[in-house]
């Protein structure tokens, strides 16, 4: 089936099979590999994207479910002036090691700060609880979130 999606402000069309996840369609059909595919079970958050402004796991949403809705991926965060403040903060705080979890965490953090520009430690932990990182031990990720909140 052919579907229309608004991805990062652009109207895109794709021929998809009804059972294909939004993640698969973004990565394999629309040339947007920023959202990562790790567990495909909703457990790691590395595929986090915004669907109509809500944070979701793209591996658990069918592309067909997103038809006619707005999708924002990590590729849509940076603007003409360069990196999104959250991306810059992750780089500056050294919150990236292998980088596999980073796109999901960046989208999740951007979503958090959009709704809550000055989150407490507990609010940060709760908001990021669905994003797993095997490398950093999280300390520098929390530093990055606080850094981004201050900018």
């Amino acid at each position, binding site marked *: 089936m052919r579907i229309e999606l608004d991805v990062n402000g652009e109207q895109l069309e794709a021929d998809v099979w*009804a*059972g294909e996840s939004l993640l698969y369609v973004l990565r394999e059909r629309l040339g947007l590999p920023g959202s990562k595919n790790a567990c495909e079970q*909703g457990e790691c958050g590395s595929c*986090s994207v915004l669907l109509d402004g809500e*944070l979701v*796991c793209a591996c658990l949403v069918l592309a*067909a479910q997103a038809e006619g809705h707005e999708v924002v991926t990590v590729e849509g965060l940076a603007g003409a002036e360069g990196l999104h403040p959250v991306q810059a903060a992750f780089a500056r705080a050294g919150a990236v090691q292998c980088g596999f979890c980073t796109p999901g965490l960046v989208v999740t953090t951007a979503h958090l700060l959009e709704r809550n520009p000055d989150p407490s430690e507990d609010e940060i932990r709760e908001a990021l609880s669905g994003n797993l990182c095997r490398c950093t031990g999280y300390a520098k990720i929390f530093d990055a979130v606080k850094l981004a909140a201050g900018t």
Partner: protein
Amino acid sequence: MKFVRPESPEAAASSLGNGSVALAGGTDLVPMLRDGLVQADELVFLRDVVPRGVQSGRIGAGTTLAELEVDPELPQALREACAASASPQLRSMGTIGGNLLQATRCWYWRLRFPCYLHGGDRCHARQGTHREHAIFGNDRCASAHPSDPAAALLALGARLQTTRRELPVADLYRLPTEENRNLTALERDELILELDVPTPDASVYLKAMDRRAWSFALVGVAAARFGAETRLALAGVAPVPWLLENPSALEQSTPLPGTAYKVEIARALVRRALASLPTT
């Protein structure tokens, strides 16, 4: 496979069965389709036909857990159970209807072992690894029901409106039998439309997990007080959400060697839940 957007709840319900499967948020169903645990020729998308939102104690089955956890109108136990479920990403897609009907998390079942619940003749978990499994109702299938909100709704005495009937949430669930291995009593072509949730004088939900967030309940305890009566219901202790007649009913549990620890946790959580409910 086809993706269909039905015109009405009735049209959606009547198209189900024979390879047509209802799809709400997709958070449970999408991975099961991918893993071949559910076969479907047609996905019937419920978003436009199942009610969403809360109005004077009635909850649309299409309301997300994220919407429920912040609704001040709802009893605390339900809000806490929703907030303690899964992760923010899952709560913003997962609906309450889908949550009540989510499949078991038993790994043997998810990995397609030919176990009792899959129609086979024995429960692999009983003899095998079963640390997450049941302490009640576990003689045939020893799985532990994963839903936190279901335990809260059971303690609250919620009722469901489906496309066919009205029923207490307790009657949605059944233990599997030789003839029928289903864990719910919902017909193939029946949809949950709404939930009616009574307002208690006080209620609470407590959840024990392997880590502080983002895991299924080892044991979840919901307590709801209506006047002089307090109702208790448990998640993670039986193949279905479990109503506990009174705290001492825990002494009648039938834990497996690997789940005896859950009885201890349940005792402690029940005590704490009851102590936390204001008395007057």
